[in-house]
C-alpha cells in the first residue's frame, strides 16, 4: 500500500470519531479536503515554495492521529509554558484535543470562546465559510490534510467595538508517547469591527518525541480591528512542525504577528496574509533559533489587494551547529493596490561554519505607485564588539551570549509586553544553555 492509501484508510477508521461527524456539510468538506490531499500528496522540493524544505520523512509513511488514551499531563507539567502574569485565559489542547480540566474557566468572558470540536458538534459553525474552501494548490496539500483530519482548537470571536482584557493563550501540547503520530489542530479567530484582540499561541512537546504537528490558524480582522498574535513554537527536537497562519485584514484593520521558532527537527511556519481592505496593516516580526541539525523555515506571503496598505516583515535568525534556516518572504501587490508601503528585512547570525541560511525575498508588484523595499543580511558575530566586551572583563562565551541575546531581544522589547518579553527571554536563555551543551 502506498502512503496515500494509508491516509485514505486512516481517514475511514477515524472519521466517525472526528467532531461534527453528524453534519453532512462537514463530512463533505473533510472528504473533499482529503481528496485534494490524496491528489497532491506531501509537498516536494519541486514546488517553488517548498524548494528549500524537504518533507521526505513525512512522505515515508502515513502518521495516524495521536492517541488520546492514557495521557499523563497535568497543569504542573505545563508550568514552563504558562507565563506568569498573563492572566487566566488559557486554553490547553493535548494531542490535538481540548482539555477542560487543564484550562481556565471561560464563563463570563466578554468574547465568545469555544473549542472547535464543540462548535462543530453543536452547530455553532454551521457552514464552511470560516473553515475556507479546500485549496486545490499542491503547495497547500498539508492544509487540506488538516481540513480532513482537524480535531480541535479554539474558536474565539472578539465582539464589535470591544477591547479584550489581556490575551487568550492557546497551548498545544503533545504528550509523551506520541511517537510517529500526528496532530491537526485548527483555530479560528474573528475580530469583529473595531475590536482589539490579543492571542498567544504556543506549540510544545512534553518529551523529545518524533511526532508531527500540523496546525492551522485562521484569523479574520473586520474593519478597524486590531489583532496582536504571538506564536511560540518550541516543539521536540525530533518532531516535525508545520504551522500555517492565514490572515485576512479588512479596511483600516491591523494585524501584528510575532512568531518565534526554536523547536522541531524540521519546522515551518507559513503566514499568508491578505490585506483586503484599504489602509490595512500587517506587521510581522519573527525570531528563529536553530542548533544541531535543526531545519527551520519561515515562509511569508503578503498579498496587498487594496490601496494604501502597509506591511512590514522583520525576521531575525541565529543558526549554530549544522542548523539550516530558510526565509522566504513574498510580497504581491495587486494592480489596483496603489499607495502600498511594504518593507521586508531578514537578518541572520551564523555561529558555525556548518550552519546555513537560504533567504529569498520576492516582490511581485503590479501597481505603479508603491514603495517596496527588501533586504537580507547574513553574518558572523562582530569580532570588534566581542573584543570590546572582553577588554572589560567579560568572557568570550558570555560576550557571545550577550550579543545573541541583544540581537533577538531587541525585537521582543519593541513588540511585546514585559510579561511575554520576560517569558521568551527565559526560553532563549535555556536555548543558549542547550547550545553550549552541544
Amino acid at each position, binding site marked *: 500500500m502506498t502512503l496515500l492509501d494509508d491516509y485514505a484508510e486512516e481517514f475511514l477508521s477515524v472519521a466517525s470519531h472526528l467532531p461534527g461527524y453528524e453534519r453532512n456539510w462537514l463530512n463533505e468538506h473533510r472528504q473533499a479536503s482529503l481528496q485534494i490531499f490524496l491528489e497532491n500528496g506531501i509537498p516536494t522540493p519541486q514546488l517553488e515554495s517548498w524548494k528549500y524544505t524537504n518533507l521526505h520523512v513525512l512522505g515515508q509513511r502515513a502518521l495516524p492521529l495521536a492517541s488520546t488514551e492514557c495521557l499523563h499531563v497535568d497543569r504542573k507539567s505545563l508550568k514552563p509554558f504558562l507565563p506568569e502574569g498573563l492572566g487566566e485565559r488559557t486554553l490547553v489542547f493535548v494531542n490535538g484535543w481540548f482539555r477542560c480540566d487543564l484550562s481556565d474557566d471561560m464563563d463570563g468572558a466578554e468574547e465568545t470562546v469555544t473549542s472547535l470540536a464543540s462548535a462543530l458538534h453543536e452547530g455553532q459553525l454551521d457552514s464552511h465559510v470560516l473553515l475556507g474552501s479546500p485549496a486545490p494548490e499542491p503547495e497547500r496539500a498539508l492544509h487540506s490534510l488538516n481540513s480532513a483530519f482537524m480535531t480541535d482548537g479554539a474558536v474565539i470571536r472578539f465582539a464589535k467595538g470591544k477591547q479584550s482584557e489581556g490575551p487568550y493563550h492557546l497551548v498545544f501540547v503533545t504528550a509523551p508517547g506520541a511517537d510517529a503520530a500526528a496532530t491537526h489542530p485548527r483555530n479560528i479567530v474573528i475580530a469583529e469591527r473595531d475590536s482589539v484582540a490579543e492571542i498567544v499561541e504556543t506549540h510544545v512537546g512534553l518529551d523529545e518525541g518524533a511526532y508531527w504537528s500540523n496546525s492551522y490558524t485562521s484569523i479574520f480582522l473586520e474593519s478597524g480591528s486590531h489583532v496582536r498574535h504571538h506564536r511560540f513554537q518550541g516543539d521536540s527536537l525530533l518532531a516535525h512542525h508545520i504551522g500555517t497562519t492565514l490572515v485576512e485584514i479588512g479596511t483600516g484593520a491591523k494585524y501584528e504577528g510575532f512568531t518565534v521558532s526554536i523547536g522541531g527537527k524540521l519546522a515551518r511556519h507559513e503566514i499568508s496574509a491578505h490585506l483586503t481592505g484599504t489602509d490595512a496593516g500587517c506587521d510581522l516580526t519573527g525570531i528563529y533559533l536553530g542548533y544541531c541539525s535543526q531545519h527551520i523555515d519561515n515562509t511569508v506571503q503578503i498579498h496587498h489587494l487594496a490601496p494604501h496598505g502597509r506591511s512590514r516583515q522583520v525576521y531575525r535568525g541565529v543558526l549554530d551547529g549544522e542548523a539550516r534556516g530558510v526565509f522566504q518572504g513574498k510580497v504581491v501587490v495587486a494592480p489596483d493596490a496603489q499607495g502600498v508601503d511594504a518593507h521586508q528585512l531578514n537578518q541572520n547570525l551564523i555561529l558555525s561554519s556548518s550552519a546555513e541560511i537560504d533567504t529569498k525575498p520576492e516582490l511581485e508588484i503590479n501597481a505603479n505607485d508603491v514603495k517596496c523595499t527588501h533586504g537580507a543580511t547574513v553574518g558572523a558575530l*562582530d*569580532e*570588534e*564588539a566581542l*573584543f*570590546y*566586551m*572582553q*577588554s*572589560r*572583563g*567579560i*568572557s*568570550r562565551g*558570555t560576550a557571545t551570549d*550577550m*550579543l545573541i*541575546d*541583544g*540581537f*533577538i*531581544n*531587541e525585537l521582543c522589547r519593541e513588540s511585546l509586553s514585559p510579561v511575554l518579553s520576560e517569558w521568551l527571554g527565559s526560553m532563549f536563555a535555556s536555548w543558549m544553555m542547550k547550545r553550549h551543551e552541544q
Partner: protein
Amino acid sequence: MLEIKGLHVSVQGSVILNGLDLTVPEGEVHAIMGPNGSGKSTLSYTMAGREGYVATDGQILYRGVNLLKMSPEDRAREGMFMAFQYPVEIPGVSVLYFLKAALNAHRKHRGEKEVDAIEFLKLARSNADTLGMDHEMLNRQVNMGFSGGEKKRCEILQMAILQPQLLVLDETDSGLDIDALKVVAKGVNNLRSENRTILLITHYQRLLSHVVPDKVHVLSGGRIVASGGKDLALTLERKGYAEFSTEAA
C-alpha cells in the same frame, strides 16, 4: 608597576613595535606621544590583547605578571582598562546590562559576591551623576548612536565603575570638543592615585594640559626614542616630531 621590556610586535606580518622598553611606576601618569604610524595604537591593542597583534619577543609585566600570556578578559580582571580611541557599538545590549556583566566578572574573579540589579543601578546612577550624564543614557544600547563626546563619557563611566589599576587611554582625546575633553580629563584625574598606573597615548599635547603627566615619552619607529618631563610635550607641540623621526630612521 608596569614594565615593558624589549617588546616586538608584528601585525599581518609587518613589524610595528621594534624593541620597546618602558617603565611606569605605580602612582604615576606617563604620556606616550608619537607621529602617525609610530605604533601608538599597536602598543595599546597589544596591551589589551587584541587578536592579530603578535608579540614576537619581549614582555609586558604588570605587577610582575606577563600580560601577554593572559586572555583579554583576564587582563581586564587583573585591573587593566583600555579606553578605546573608537569605542565599539554593541547593538541590543544596554549600557547598564553591559556594565553590570563587566563588574560582576571582576568581582567573581576576586572572589567577591556579585552585585544585584538594584544595587548596581544605584552605583551606575551615582557615577553617571558625577560625570553629568543623563540616567537615560544607561538604558541606551552601548555606544549606539552616541556622539563622539558621549562615547568618551561612556568610557569614563566604565572606568569609574570598574576602578582599574592600570589605565591605558588610546587617543581618548581625538575628536573631542573642549567641554568633552574636560570631562574626560576630570574622569582620569579622579582616578589618579598612589596605587594606579596611567598611560596616556596621544598625538597631541592638548589632553596633557588637563591631565598633567609625570613623564612624557616619544614613540617613533616602534620604540621609545626620547623621554622627559611634562615640558617635552610642549616642545613636541612647537617643533613637531621631525627630529625624532630622523633619529629613529
